[in-house]
């Protein structure tokens, strides 16, 4: 049988804390426990570096997750006498910034990766069993709902959210509190709350991970939103290609119903609210709020001009509050820790944290959450661990297909809505793709444009026709058929599409092209004038050559599908450039590294 213990005391055992006498603390703690006859009911455990070295040595008491910092041997006696014997927290030692996010520090070991992060939206991701409501409840789950229903009027909830300075995490960054207020002030017997989980950026998985790791936080956020604006029905719009996220969300909703957090008279109050799930077929444009609403209504997912905004005339013509997954996930923390605290994190214009899906040419690809104001350099080189294989950093792409590519000189840009915009990119929903010198910027711009072009719903001409023409020009350039004046054409067309498109998809579709033209114009020029791709990516502009160290093993000759390689055994082979289709098979076959791309 497992032994039942009343307290678990964790002492940080990282190098800094050891240096600051954590071993001494452990010894004194054990002596004190012995003295108070507690060694059977209190368990002592050690943790790896918690990443809070400045406040070390650290002692954490569970349950309750009380964090004590700068603890000395004499403090231990006090903690034992007060906290463990009498159950009173020793206030003077508690680390002041002990907020919900500190739970995250229970993630141990890789402090380098986690040390610079602050987890608010992802606070429970990777800590709890996402299919177990009890786990969520144990970590103050649904306390924010209870708090709101007990002590706050809808007006006070909205004021708290406004005070927090939270802005929409879906991309556009509209102030969340204002959106809530606009919906709340509408007179209507029926209102809706929608969670936009139609995440479609290539390479982005923030919303999926949030729902898969902690679905209840989204549910809780939506209940609070419903209460604040006076809605009784909530809808989660999620794409059908996220089966596990859907399964966990369904489970979360049904267990929340079972426990009385959803349904009629939530927690004995007179507020009723329920949530249903609607599946999207995975169209990128359905991330746009009016297209999303059309899709839920059963129409074809196409945007419509705004105003009227959904807060006035949304789903089925009723006032509708629509927020992104990450925005909802922040709400319970704002209620529990207060808007003032939330506003203390981040920069002047962007508060709180932002989740990013760090991908591409970076050592630690992963899901991260950092305070606003963290620089791109910190994210890529400190958390991300830099570029693998000793290659050189070239650019970072933020905001997915709607964002831009930022070169090296922008690495010190702090992450916030304004500064990213000023640098020529956008915050977007949180995709962050690192690009190294082996990638061709024209090719990358083409890739993103291919995506938006095929996802364009076709309703407005600038987006439907304009992106198609831009893609044609880009394809021409990458195939070595670029002409003088193409860059100017792209620029003009891009700006036109930006100004004239109906919705965000079209308005932002030229961004990857325009930002690469701005920052990497020389690569475009090389493609057009010299028919050269410096990253040796664009197939028509490169050739494979056999170097002098060829031993004449004939392996490449056998591998070549078009018989473009000539040579006899033990003699250097030659590639016939006219026959070669540049498939690269010879290069991957060669065991002597004797074939190069130029």
């Amino acid at each position, binding site marked *: 049988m*497992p*032994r*039942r*213990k009343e307290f678990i005391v964790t002492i940080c*055992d990282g190098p800094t804390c050891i240096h600051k006498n954590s071993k001494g603390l452990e010894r004194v703690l054990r002596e004190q426990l012995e003295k108070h006859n507690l060694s059977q009911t209190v*368990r*002592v*455990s*050690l*943790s*790896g570096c918690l990443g809070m070295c400045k406040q070390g040595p650290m002692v954490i008491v569970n*349950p309750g997750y009380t964090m004590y910092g700068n603890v000395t041997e004499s403090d231990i006696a006090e903690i034992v006498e007060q906290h463990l014997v009498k159950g009173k927290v020793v206030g003077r030692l508690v680390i002041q910034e002990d907020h919900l996010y500190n739970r995250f520090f229970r*993630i141990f*070991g*890789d402090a380098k*990766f986690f040390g610079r992060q602050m987890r608010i939206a*992802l606070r*429970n*991701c*990777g*800590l*709890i*069993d*996402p*299919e*177990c*409501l*009890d*786990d969520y*409840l*144990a970590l103050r*789950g*649904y*306390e924010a*709902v*209870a*708090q709101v*229903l*007990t*002590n706050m009027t809808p007006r006070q909830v909205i004021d708290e959210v406004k005070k927090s300075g939270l802005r929409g995490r879906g991309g556009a960054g509209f102030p969340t509190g204002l959106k809530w207020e606009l919906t709340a002030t509408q007179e209507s017997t029926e209102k809706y709350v929608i969670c936009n989980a139609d995440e479609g950026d290539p390479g982005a*998985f923030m919303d*999926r*991970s949030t729902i*898969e*790791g*902690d679905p209840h936080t989204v549910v809780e956020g939506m209940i609070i939103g419903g209460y604040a604006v006076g809605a009784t029905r909530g809808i989660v719009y999620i794409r059908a290609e*996220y089966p*596990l*996220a859907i399964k966990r969300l369904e489970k979360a909703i049904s267990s929340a119903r079972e*426990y009385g957090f959803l349904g009629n008279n*939530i*927690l*004995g*109050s007179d507020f009723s609210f329920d949530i249903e799930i609607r599946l999207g077929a995975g169209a990128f444009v359905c991330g746009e709020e009016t297209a999303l609403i059309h899709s839920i209504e059963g129409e074809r997912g196409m945007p419509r001009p705004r105003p009227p905004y959904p807060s006035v005339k949304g789903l089925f013509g009723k006032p509708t509050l629509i927020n992104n997954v990450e925005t909802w996930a922040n709400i319970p923390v704002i209620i529990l820790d207060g808007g003032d605290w939330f506003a203390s994190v981040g920069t002047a214009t962007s508060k709180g944290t932002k989740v990013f899906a760090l*991908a591409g040419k970076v*050592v*630690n*690809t*992963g*899901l991260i959450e950092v305070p606003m104001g963290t620089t791109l350099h910190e994210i890529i080189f400190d958390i991300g661990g830099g570029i693998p294989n000793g290659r050189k950093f070239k650019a970072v792409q933020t905001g997915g297909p709607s964002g831009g590519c930022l070169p090296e000189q922008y690495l010190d840009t702090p992450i916030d809505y304004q500064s990213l915009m000023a640098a020529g990119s956008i915050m977007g929903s949180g995709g962050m793709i690192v690009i190294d010198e082996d990638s061709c910027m024209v090719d990358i711009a083409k890739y993103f444009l291919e995506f938006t072009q095929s996802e364009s719903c076709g309703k407005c001409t600038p987006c439907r026709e304009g992106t198609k023409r831009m893609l044609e020009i880009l394809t021409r350039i990458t195939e070595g058929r670029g002409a003088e004046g193409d860059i100017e054409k792209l620029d003009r067309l891009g700006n036109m599409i930006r100004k004239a498109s109906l919705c965000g998809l079209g308005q932002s579709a030229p961004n990857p092209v325009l930002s690469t033209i701005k920052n990497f114009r020389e690569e475009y020029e090389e493609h057009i004038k010299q028919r050269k791709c410096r990253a040796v990516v664009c197939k028509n502009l490169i050739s494979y050559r056999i170097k002098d160290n060829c031993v004449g093993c004939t392996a490449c000759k056998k591998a070549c599908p078009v018989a473009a390689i000539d040579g006899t055994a033990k003699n250097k082979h030659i590639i016939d450039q006219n026959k070669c289709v540049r498939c690269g098979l010879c290069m991957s076959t060669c065991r002597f590294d004797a074939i190069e791309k130029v």
Partner: protein
Amino acid sequence: MSTPLDLIRKKRAEAVSRIISKGYLSTKRVYVGMATCEIAAGSKEVMDVFREAVAKGSLTDVYLSQKGCVGRCNLEPTVEVVEEGCNPIKYGKVDKERALAIIERHLKNGEVIKEWVID
């Protein structure tokens, strides 16, 4: 009349005691990452190895749980071992063989398999 806050406190206390009754206070706790990304990397097989070991009774005094994605995409699947009186350990790139080795060497014999630890 109890307020929603009173109710939630009661529910939380119940939840905590249910978690404890599932064996949370076992001397060892093992967490396996089970988000789509981790499952794609093979964590389901890893979870099965641990489940089987617990079901067969070859692992005792172990609390086994799944968890969401913690964000270490390139090191998935991840397995965490939290043990009383020891440093908690997080293993990366765990497959079936590694899971078996973790059971035999770490959970049964207390040996930390250093080369697989994420630090």
